[in-house]
């Protein structure tokens, strides 16, 4: 069977949901004839027509607002942000209108807002952001960050079917670098469930998105030294799989929290608090974080390389923690 890339998996997921459910439609900038800046919607205009694949003006807030309106009428809009960085322009509609709607007056807003996030392609401060925490800190939203083609497809389908607003951050570095064979049947990946990417006994690395691969790389390296990492891919950040995190930490007794997002207020802090509250007595060493530093994402390759967490960082921290 052919291998499916991460980006193609997203495309397939949306496509299948559109075939199955006529309430599903896509709106965003250049999603129509152009098929989206990263071709996630390629071919959809021809198949579904211009009232289900809607090219919009450059109006991120308006796009999300319109998605909310359609969702309130029973539709299932999938709004594309051309880069996840531009979701900042729709922050108010997402956090105030969509997130709080059900709570305020019982009206669910089943929208998906998706877009390419993450660095590694020299996109600079406005084409590399990891904006997940702004939404993770907003009750009423769900936030997912798939790392594999399987999850990319399974989570976009779950997101579209979800009765609540889901923010779906795809990692642009993975778009064409990650591929795998996908089952041909209709599958979803449930929102809120983590996956163990490597079973290990010495310490746990909790991570998500593109960092999963960095962790796997480090694990290979550390294996040679007899340090055995368990790697947990969260897949969803809100809600997140607390039990999976705690189970793994209770087993390995040491933990590294890893993300590409910046440090202060990043997801690792939340995890550290949870672990400390609920698995304190299992800890045999300090909880360690590996994250990007607290700066914008710089553009020049040496700077960006410095910015992004690397396998060597994990190797170094894991050695320290192992020796603790």
């Amino acid at each position, binding site marked *: 069977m052919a291998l499916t890339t991460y980006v193609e998996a997203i495309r397939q997921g949306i496509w299948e949901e559109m075939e199955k459910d006529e309430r599903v439609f896509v709106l965003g900038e250049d999603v129509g004839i152009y098929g989206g800046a990263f071709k996630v919607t390629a071919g959809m205009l021809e198949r579904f027509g211009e009232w289900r694949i809607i090219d919009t*003006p450059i109006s991120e807030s308006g796009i999300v607002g319109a998605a909310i309106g359609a969702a309130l*009428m029973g539709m299932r809009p999938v709004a594309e942000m051309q880069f996840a960085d531009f979701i900042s322009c729709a922050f108010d509609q997402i956090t105030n*209108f969509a997130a709080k709607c059900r709570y305020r007056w*019982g009206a669910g807003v089943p929208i998906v807002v998706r877009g390419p996030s993450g660095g590694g392609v020299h996109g600079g401060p406005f084409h590399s952001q990891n904006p997940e925490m702004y939404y993770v800190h907003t009750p009423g939203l769900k936030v997912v960050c798939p790392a594999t083609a399987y999850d990319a497809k399974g989570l976009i389908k779950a997101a579209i079917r979800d009765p609540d607003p889901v923010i779906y951050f795809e990692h642009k570095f993975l778009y064409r670098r990650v591929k795998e064979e996908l089952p041909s049947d209709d599958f979803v990946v449930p929102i809120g469930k983590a996956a163990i990417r490597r079973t290990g006994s010495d310490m746990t690395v909790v991570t998500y998105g593109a960092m999963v691969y960095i962790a796997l790389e480090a694990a290979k390296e550390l294996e040679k030294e007899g340090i055995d990492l368990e790697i947990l891919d969260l897949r969803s950040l809100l809600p997140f799989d607390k039990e999976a995190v705690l189970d793994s930490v209770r087993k390995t007794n040491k933990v590294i929290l890893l993300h590409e997002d910046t440090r202060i207020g990043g997801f690792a802090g939340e995890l550290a608090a949870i672990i400390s509250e609920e698995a304190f007595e299992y800890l045999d060493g300090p909880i360690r974080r590996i994250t990007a530093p607290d700066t914008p994402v710089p553009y020049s390759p040496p700077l960006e390389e410095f910015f992004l967490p690397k396998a060597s960082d994990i190797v170094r921290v894991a050695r320290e923690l192992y020796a603790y």
Partner: protein
Amino acid sequence: MKVNSTNSQTLARDAVPPITIPTDKTLLDMLYYMKLTRELEFRIERKLYRQGKIVGGVYVGRGQEAIAVGSCIDLRADDVVCPSHRDMGAFLIRGMPLRTILAQYMARKTGATRGKEGNMHMGDLSKNLIAFVSMLGDNVPVAAGIGLSMKMRGQDRVVLCFFGDGATSRGDWHEGINMASVWKVPVVFVCNNNQYAYSTPLERQMAVENIADRAEAYGLPGEIVDGNDILAVSDSATRAIERARSGHGPTLIECKTFRMTGHSAHDDAGYVPPELFEYWEERDPINRFERFLTERGLTTTSALDQLQTRINHEIDDAIQLAEKDPFPDPEDCLKDVYDEGE
């Protein structure tokens, strides 16, 4: 820009077709809903609030009643309304019970939002009423999206979306109107231009004279209406609704009116020149409409008294019930953040 009004002094009659007068039944309904709005908000702002029975802030539409009532009176039940914070009439016409509204203001479990939200932040999907968020202008792209869903599905429904003059300065207003116009979706945008945004007069908000002047920037028709003239409002709204329903896209209706109170119950509007209140008091939409109906033989002084008495009773009863309604259970705080299944 021409103004739609039955007051010939302000009227450029050639600009719009002659005003169509609704049926007698509709005329009397209009009167009822305007008077009900006036009395209900009077009780909320001037009685219950001062008695400490209202929780949180209060914003009323005193003097602006003709706008929500005149534009909503002829909607179909499957049409959708996105009211702003001074459009009580919309809720009443769409059938939200007085008790539910009062319980909302008193933060009871039986309120429209079960105590989660305050005052005008009410909605009910079963009545096609979309709850306002405080962020002014946010409802404009939402209305565009509602219209979009109707167009996509080939429905002949329409959306009425309300906002104030101040809200038109928000970026979301711009994005929403623009998208609605590009997509030609069935939305009627109704601006309550009451000349002030809180303490800020129009000339500090915009460098144009009329909100309707902005319509040209989006390629949609704009119309100025005497917002204190319910016949003019309903006439313009009816035409715009018909336009939208028959697939000709959105319209922007600017209703010129005045906020006959402070911005909220705690604001004495000291910044408003008293002459302005006097000027607009003379143009009170209810008095004016009562005169019209009397002249037309559709009401009399005693009929008006009876109507007022009936309204008073309806509200008295609702207040009594709402006051006895329970507050929500504290743990309800945790409910309904997400779908909780059946």
